[in-house]
């Protein structure tokens, strides 16, 4: 068809230019229409299928696969105890704690863009953040209040787990991991307290780390500390602060513990914590109540 001259064809078929153009674009129009019709069902697109791998329809199988084959949701089982979905049993405190950890990581990374862990500029960075950075004040407020909220939700989560006896067999070890996470949460908050380098943080950390010098055997004011050769320059408080007073080294150490070390340690324990929730048989209840007279005391340890 290469020899076909547009001018010649125009002479052979004396129709209007518009009609010819309409004729020519018909195949494209059809393609566009079928594409648009395809967009009405995004689940059928190759892009969607490549991302989600499974069909998304109302069958139980698809619902299960939708959870199990999703990297972010695969921590969940496919199905849960129908009563555990109610708010009353778990209060959602563990999940809220994890969500707050994500919020804090997000706001924390943004704060790191504006903060230098140096005694000279740390306080100025906070002022800059509060007065000049767009939404800087909101960012800092969210990080602080989120941290306080996380401590409250961790406590309430522990309270709920205790009152439902969820630490009992086979979940003993996951309670231990949970206690470590509780301690790490408070340490995360505590190390962050110093970073604004203001009077509040300075004296709070001074009060806090002063206790370390009273450690038995490891602090220079603790029982048996001096006898074991502890001085203000080699005891456990010195190791925490990188010096004998709360100063620039302490600021840097708090920063590194706060932004790198403890988040990594806590994340590791969180992975174990969530993994064990699943491996120990999922969420503990609400399970049917037991009766004292039904216990077979001599066979309890066999399980």
């Amino acid at each position, binding site marked *: 068809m290469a020899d076909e001259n547009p001018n010649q064809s125009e002479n052979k078929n004396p129709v209007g230019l518009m009609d010819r153009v309409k004729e020519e674009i018909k195949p494209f129009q059809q393609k566009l229409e079928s594409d648009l019709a395809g967009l009405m069902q995004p689940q059928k697109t190759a892009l969607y299928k490549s991302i989600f791998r499974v069909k998304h329809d109302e069958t139980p199988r698809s619902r299960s696969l939708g959870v199990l084959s999703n990297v972010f949701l695969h921590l969940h089982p496919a199905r849960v105890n129908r009563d555990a979905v109610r708010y009353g049993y778990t209060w959602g405190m563990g*999940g809220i704690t994890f969500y707050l950890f994500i919020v804090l990581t997000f706001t924390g990374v943004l704060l790191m863009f504006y903060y230098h862990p140096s005694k000279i500029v740390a306080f100025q960075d906070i002022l800059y953040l509060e007065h000049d950075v767009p939404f800087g004040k909101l960012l800092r*407020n969210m990080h602080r209040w989120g941290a306080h909220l996380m401590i*409250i939700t961790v406590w309430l989560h522990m309270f709920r787990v205790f009152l439902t006896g969820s*630490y009992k067999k086979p979940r003993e070890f996951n309670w231990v991991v949970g206690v470590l996470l509780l301690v790490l949460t408070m340490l995360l908050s505590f190390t962050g307290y110093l970073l*604004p380098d203001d009077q509040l943080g300075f004296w*709070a950390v001074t009060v806090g780390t002063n206790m370390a010098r*009273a450690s038995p055997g490891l602090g220079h004011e603790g029982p048996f500390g001096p006898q074991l050769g502890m001085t203000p320059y080699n005891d456990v408080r010195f190791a925490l602060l990188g010096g004998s007073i709360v100063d620039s080294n302490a600021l840097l150490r708090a920063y590194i513990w706060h932004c790198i070390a403890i988040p990594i340690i806590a994340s590791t324990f969180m992975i174990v914590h969530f993994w064990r929730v699943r491996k120990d048989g999922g969420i503990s209840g609400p399970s049917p109540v037991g009766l004292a007279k039904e216990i077979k005391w001599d066979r309890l340890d066999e399980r």
Partner: protein
Amino acid sequence: MDWHQLWVITSTPDNVPIVALLFLVPFYVWYAFRQAFANDRLIEQLEASPEMAKTHHRKTQPYQSGWAKELPVWPFLLRMEFLAALIVTIVLFVWSITLNAPLEEPANASITMNPAKAPWYFLGLQEMLVYFDPWMAGVILPTLIVVGLMAIPYMDMNPLGNGYYTYKQRKFAIWTFCFGFIGLWVLMVVIGTFIRGPGWMWFWPGATWDHSRLIFEINRDLDQIVAGIFSSLGMLSVAEFFGNIWVRTVFGAIVTGLYFAVAGFAIHKLIVATEFNRKVYARMSMLQYLTLQVMLTFMLLLPVKIVLRLLFRIKYIWVTPWFNI
């Protein structure tokens, strides 16, 4: 009544979480125990009629035959999680827009804050400094709290109450935990926040935080009080005897030993209080039992010292050349 002072304390931005705690903890205690008592009533019914125990689904949640025991996570759990995330986000945004994070003057080692307070969640430990020396309040007791918490599942041999709220079946465990969590930890955080003012002195709510306030109280050690009693009885030679540090050490050791004996005995009585508790006790190994005793006697040491200090102005019960308790 200094309402302004009260407002200053409660509206300090960093104290807002504790104000929230004052509402949240009672609410969730009520919420948990409401479910616990509902379960307890069900347990009573089931125990009374074996026929019912055979057929009942044994939960207080509604149930109809034919209902699946499990629900798909999508959408039933995930929508709850999404809703929770949404609500928390909104709460956090509103809180962050309306209330600014505190920022004091730049850190200055030569200007002491008064009162210099730890972050609120550590105020329990700071409050313990009133009753114990730093090595106890700041190191030994926190370590015992953490280790004791971790040891709970390995000490609690009660097979009942796994996976549901109950009070009746786990009275001892629940009383112990609530006493430790609410009666000691949360209460001391609240005291540290609202009651302790300049110089870490006790200001009742509504009292003005007077920075020049002086308290002339003489805190004495237990052995000096005993020595005082002897001297007032005219037995001066015995009283003089208590001036010797080694006598004081031995006396304190005896008193402390006596405390642990009495507290241990009382706790033992509670552990074996009922028929059911005795069966649980029979399951415990020696190690489990002794660990439980150590944890609980040390926990009780705190309220004992609070009472001794606040009511009887006794500072130490055991004075030695190396440490004091």
